[in-house]
């Protein structure tokens, strides 16, 4: 299969969906000639013109509000907020309006919109440009939350998100944009709410999201050499959550490690841990382990940032702890 970059897969998804449905359009800061801060809209302006690839003022509340208003009259907007840190200035629209209008208005409202943002650290962008805030959105009924970890998933999930009639928060990890991976040529979608077992194993289950999927696969590779067999499950969408696939794995291995880049405290991993404690209690043979960012703002110093962000070594160490092999 051909290999393309994560960001190229996103551009393809947008391009195909815009061709398929004239109601789809994109709005956000610097997505036009500039092609987006991380080039994830590159070339779309040339193909679809400035009416459908709309460069906005710096005004994230207006970007999301405008996307919602357009959706209400029948469009299918894809709003780009760039850094997930900037979602903080649009939370009212996302949480109080976008997520709630369908319910609040008794079911009639049309809210087919996607809000893209990129999270995560690793490039010394410091405390205001490196966060992982996806747990906030999972906490809000009315939103769906997607976090792809590969180019293939990115494309298939973004296409599904655009076609979905519910609002979807689509979180991309910055470090993934230039990662290459196999992506099928033709038309395909990946349903929201379907986890994928990225590697099979029998001793421990690693549930990992976004950037931590790759690191977990590397850790699993390493651990295999030590005779520890890890199953790596990527939920791909944090809500709706494919509990079935995840819990089946936990029941099989009896051990659960959760890995994400958000800080531990009230991160999504807490929810995953709680679900395991509620629904797989009798299958757990050891206390679960969370491998998450340290509870600090993201530091600028590469040395500190590397300690802040969970690394593949942390996953490996966590698994060893989990299976009772102290090294």
């Amino acid at each position, binding site marked *: 299969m051909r290999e393309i970059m994560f960001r190229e897969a996103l551009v393809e998804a947008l391009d195909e969906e815009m061709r398929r449905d004239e109601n789809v359009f994109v709005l956000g800061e610097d997505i036009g000639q500039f092609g987006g801060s991380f080039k994830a809209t590159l070339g779309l302006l040339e193909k679809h013109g400035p*009416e459908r690839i709309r460069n906005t003022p710096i005004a994230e509340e207006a970007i999301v509000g*405008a996307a919602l208003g357009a959706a209400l*009259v029948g469009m299918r907007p894809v709003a780009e907020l760039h850094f997930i840190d900037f979602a903080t200035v649009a939370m009212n629209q996302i949480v109080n309006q976008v997520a709630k209008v369908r319910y609040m208005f008794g079911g009639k409202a049309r809210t087919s919109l996607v809000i893209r943002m990129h999270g995560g650290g690793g490039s010394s962008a410091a405390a205001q440009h490196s966060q992982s805030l996806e747990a906030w959105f999972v906490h809000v009924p009315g939103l769906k939350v997607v976090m792809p970890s590969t180019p293939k998933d990115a494309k298939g999930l973004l296409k599904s998100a655009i076609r979905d009639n519910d609002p979807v928060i689509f979180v991309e990890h910055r470090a993934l944009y230039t990662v290459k991976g196999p992506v099928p040529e033709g038309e395909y979608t990946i349903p929201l*709410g379907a986890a994928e077992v990225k590697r099979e194993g029998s001793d421990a289950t690693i549930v990992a999201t976004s950037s931590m999927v790759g690191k977990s696969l590397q850790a699993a590779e390493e651990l295999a050499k030590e005779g520890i067999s890890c199953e790596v499950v990527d939920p791909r969408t944090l809500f709706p959550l494919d509990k079935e696939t995840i819990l089946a794995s936990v029941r099989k291995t009896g051990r659960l490690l959760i890995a994400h880049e958000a800080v531990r405290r009230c991160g999504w991993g807490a929810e995953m841990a709680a679900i395991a404690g509620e629904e797989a209690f009798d299958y757990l043979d050891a206390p679960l382990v969370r491998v998450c960012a340290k509870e600090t703002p993201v530091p600028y110093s590469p040395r500190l940032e590397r300690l802040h962000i969970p690394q593949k070594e942390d996953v490996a160490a966590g698994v060893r702890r989990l299976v009772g092999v102290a090294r």
Partner: protein
Amino acid sequence: MAKLTRERALWMYETMIRIRRFEERAIEVFQAGELPGFIHPYIGEEAVAAGVCAHLSGKDQITSTHRGHGHMIAKGLGFNGMMAELYARSTGYCKGKGGSLHIADQDLGALGASGIVGGGIPIAAGAALGIKLKGGKEVAVSFFGDGATNIGAFHEGINLAAAWRLPAVFVCENNRYAQSTPQSVHQSIRDIADRAKAYGIPGVIVDGMDAAAVYEVAGEAIGRARGGGGPTLIEAKTFRFWGHYLGDPGTAYGHDREAPKWKKRDPIPALGGLLRKRKWLTAKADEEILARVKGELDAAVEFARKSPPPEPADLMADIYEKAL
């Protein structure tokens, strides 16, 4: 400029009476303990909703506020669904899930009220964007208060609409107070219309107690928007006759002292006088309107009282398109 016809003038007059009577009845049943939640009466400001919506069709879009009953009635929502919503019944516009703060009907271009001050302004800009992208001739109108003009969403929403020349009209109902805070305390300008200069769009002041005046100014703005001329900011100087919400007597912040002066300028008798002067309204027709509205309201209250509340299963419905 849109000349005020007899038909439109009578429509406004009846609409204002519908708003007034609906709210009086809602207040009555609220005070009798029949309604849950809160009510923010629009009474006194009816000329604004009527004067603006007189130019709108069902396909035009509006966004509204916590003080939204008037906008909804003027936009064509019926008493039954509205009253049932206040009563939290399953036959309400929002099936009892929204209440007074959130009455909406997408089919009638009523995109709903935001209980978050200013929240509807960017949404209206977006509706206007959607209209433009679809090549339609409709407009989107956003209603909001003086207090809302200090929040970020006001600024961002209007700037976006102006930069993109969207078919939107922004209607500020300046009733002199944001809850208990007088305009002179919450901003240092007198005329909110001046804020239009920040966006390079027309800003117009109008007497919000004068329906005909609002009609004229709104007609111009809406016409401009339909014609591709971009948005307008209208400031309608008005006054709410009641406190901020039912239960607020308005005494803590001087509202009660200002009220008598404004009540003398009640927009309904004012428009009635104009209609009679032009011989567009007879005493008999006037009585007929009142009787018709009263009859409809009696029926609506009856309808609401008899309607069932939502079923427990409704709690989990309408969160997503399909239950998850």
